[in-house]
């Protein structure tokens, strides 16, 4: 976290786990609680928890290829009008294509054609459907997926 003047009021906490799927639920539980204490509704808190868990799973599974011993950072920053969650890893960066293709449309399916219903690929579409914005950046070896949710208070 940088040293900075807090020109705009915010609260921030960073959460770090090892690249181990066993510990992802801790991130989920914590994000849910932080959201509900803003306070956001149970539904909103759960949906944001879901997005963050999807992003952390992606870092572990795709950026680190399920290799243990790396770190995934989640930075939760609450501004008066919005919530920003950054999910960062130092693994293999994501193809820009993955970000762009994953519009909300992959959630649409033909429910009668069971064989063609995918077993994967819903993580980024779910995030896109729930959050107000999602951006991805790689800088000096660190990849961050930034999720934004506007808060109406």
């Amino acid at each position, binding site marked *: 976290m940088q040293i900075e003047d807090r020109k705009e009021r915010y609260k921030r906490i960073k959460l770090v786990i090892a690249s181990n799927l066993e510990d992802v639920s801790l991130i989920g539980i914590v994000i849910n609680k932080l959201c509900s204490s803003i306070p956001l509704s149970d539904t909103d808190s759960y949906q944001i928890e879901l997005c963050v*868990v999807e992003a952390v799973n992606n870092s572990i599974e795709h950026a680190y290829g399920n290799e243990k011993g790396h770190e995934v950072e989640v930075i939760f920053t609450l501004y008066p009008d919005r919530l920003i969650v950054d999910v960062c890893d130092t693994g293999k960066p994501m193809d820009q294509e993955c970000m762009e293709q994953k519009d909300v449309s992959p*959630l649409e*399916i033909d429910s009668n054609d069971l064989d063609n*219903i995918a*077993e994967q690929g819903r993580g980024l579409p779910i995030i896109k459907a729930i959050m107000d914005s999602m951006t991805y950046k790689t800088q000096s070896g660190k990849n961050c997926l930034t999720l934004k949710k506007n808060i109406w208070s």
Partner: protein
Amino acid sequence: MQVEDRKEGDVLVVKVLNKRLDAQAANDFKEKMTEYINNGSPLIVLNMSDVDFVDSSGLGAMVSVLKLSGGDGQLAVCGTTERVARMFKLTRMNKVFSMFEEESEAIDALSQ
């Protein structure tokens, strides 16, 4: 991944005891369910009332189990909590799975 099972006529009722059906639990869940199916239980009711979190990996595992079981005439889901039901709706899975509020309704539906 913990489950509890019992027979109701021809139907096997499987209750998921974990609170989270997530990336960590997904494979184990798939294996357990595959075992049930391979051991000759074609009609399965999945009771999800204890599960309060499902992510896309958990959902993927459920889709894979549904395919293996032969479709929604063979597998029914019941008792999803409101938040999980919302996740099913968001991903259109409410149209893919036969879903029931009560376990008894799900058992009846498969028993016919």
